């Protein structure tokens, strides 16, 4: 009910939403529950993450179904208290995250685990505005107890069901392929969970690869997955997920992940601190940040994405 009241009390304007990253992330407050769009190293809202780190937010809860090293950046920066996720790491070749182990095993950061579907249904229940959704997942596992998931008796058959509680994040941060200046958003390729996350959250911040004229939205309204009235701030950021991937536009730069992982391997959290300095704090704008990779590398990743999606 509180989540509904928050949304009812908020302006749902069809006005212009365009701004810059700095202004957009001012809407994130210390202690907020922030849901991060995309998944693992796909369509991660990297520009907004950089912005939040640069403004030194503290005490955040970060929720993301498959959590990549962006959460490690917040851990080392001292910005996060709780990670809500189904899985955390970069991917099989990089093994178990040493940073995650360091912070979670020492109790500095809490890692709250739900199954991938259960967390997806938490966003969907939030998006639907209902307190929970029945499901058959997670039953019988030890995840039930540690997540606090409750069961429910099917009123029709008496069977046992999981009652997956709705999640209403304070803020959603998302990266999409295109939006018009009013915040009507379209996504190409796999949708992940962004549409549900946008509906479940109170405040929605979006970066887009491309800002298109309103006419373009009206020509293809069937492609719009997030309506403008749900969006609070919109920023035009080409390559806004980089070095993570954006479907059809650029492939993930796994060589960069290797470089990051080497820093962790040799220096632990200090390696991450050095990474933060070089890639987050030092370059003032996202364009300066992209310059660290260089145009040739961006073009190469663009070419690879084309080959995989043609």
């Amino acid at each position, binding site marked *: 009910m509180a989540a509904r009241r928050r949304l009812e009390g908020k302006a749902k304007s069809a006005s212009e939403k365009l701004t810059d990253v700095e202004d957009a992330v001012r809407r994130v407050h210390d202690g907020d529950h922030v849901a991060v769009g995309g*998944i*693992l*190293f*796909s369509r991660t809202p990297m520009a907004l993450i950089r912005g939040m780190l640069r403004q030194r937010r503290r005490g955040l809860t970060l929720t993301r*179904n*498959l959590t990549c090293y962006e959460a490690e950046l917040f851990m080392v920066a001292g910005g996060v208290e709780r990670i809500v*996720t*189904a*899985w*955390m*790491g970069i*991917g*099989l*070749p990089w093994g*178990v*995250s040493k940073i*995650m*182990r360091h912070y*979670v*095993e020492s*109790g500095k950061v809490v*890692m709250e*685990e739900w*199954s*991938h*579907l*259960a967390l*997806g*249904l938490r*966003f*969907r229940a939030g998006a639907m505005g209902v307190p929970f959704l029945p*499901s*058959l*997942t*997670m*039953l*019988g*596992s*030890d*995840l039930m107890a*540690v997540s606090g998931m409750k*069961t429910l008796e099917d009123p029709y058959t008496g*069977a*046992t*069901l*999981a009652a997956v509680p709705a999640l209403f994040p304070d803020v959603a941060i998302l990266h999409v392929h295109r939006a018009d200046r009013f915040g009507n958003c379209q996504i190409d*390729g*796999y*949708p*992940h*969970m962004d549409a*549900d996350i946008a509906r479940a959250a109170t405040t929605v911040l979006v970066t887009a690869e491309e800002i298109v004229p309103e006419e373009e939205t009206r020509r293809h309204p069937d492609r719009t997955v997030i309506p403008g009235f749900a969006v609070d701030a919109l920023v035009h950021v080409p390559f806004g997920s980089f070095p993570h991937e954006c*479907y*059809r536009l650029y*492939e*993930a730069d*796994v060589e960069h992940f290797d470089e990051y992982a080497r820093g962790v391997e040799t220096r632990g959290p200090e390696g991450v601190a050095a990474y933060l300095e070089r890639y987050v704090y030092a370059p003032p704008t996202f364009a300066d940040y992209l310059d660290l990779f260089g145009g040739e590398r961006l073009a190469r990743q663009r070419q690879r*994405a084309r080959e*995989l*999606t043609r």
Partner: protein
Amino acid sequence: MSPLFNTQELLAVSASRELRDDTTVFAGVGVPLLAAALARQRHAPRLTMVIEGGIIGPEIAAGKLPISTNEMRAAYRATMLPAITDAFLFAQRGFVDVGFMGGAQIDQYGNINTTVIGEYARPKVRLPGTGGANDIASLCREVIIVTAHEKRRFVPRVDFITSPAWLAGDGSRARAGLLFGGVSRVVTTLGILGFDPATKRMRIESTHPGVTVQTIRENTGFELLEAPEVRVTDPPSISELTMLRALDPERRFLG
């Protein structure tokens, strides 16, 4: 003469043979996905892969194996890209025949732990977590686990049940609300294991070429039952190995 192969190749080939034509498989990244791609190329052309990133019916390009279930390589030439939640809901609805997954720690009832070594609140080792494994284990019609066979992985009781199989046997899976599904097979680097129909305890069903029942027992941390007839796995054929190697020329998952 049978060709030479390594244990990862034997694992992938043995796993691929478990998949039937005209079925659907929810495949995890790594050897399960590689084995599913091999099955589709070789003996199951009408097998449809479902991948947790929200991908249905991909073709997986040779030499471009994905390292994550959520990337363009996993979606190559897919027939549908649903939202992730909806991809899993296909399994909850009953559309997915086989869940095909790996496992860090596994017990005699087939339960898998990928969450924590030690206590959850104060872990000795915090593992990455379930990802979609819990959902696959809960919701597919049948689950096949593909894993290296090591004593430290095959333990009497897992520290934490991340992905439920038969729980504690004796109908406990159904009592928890999971009225269908469960693990049918565990394909390992040493052999193929199944479950005793009555007790749901793990049993040896097949030994890989050159492996004895004794070797499997020595590499397992609990007492294994035996199927009435323990078979010997056919060694990988030249055609299986050729196709498999072509899929992973960089030896990303084949070692």
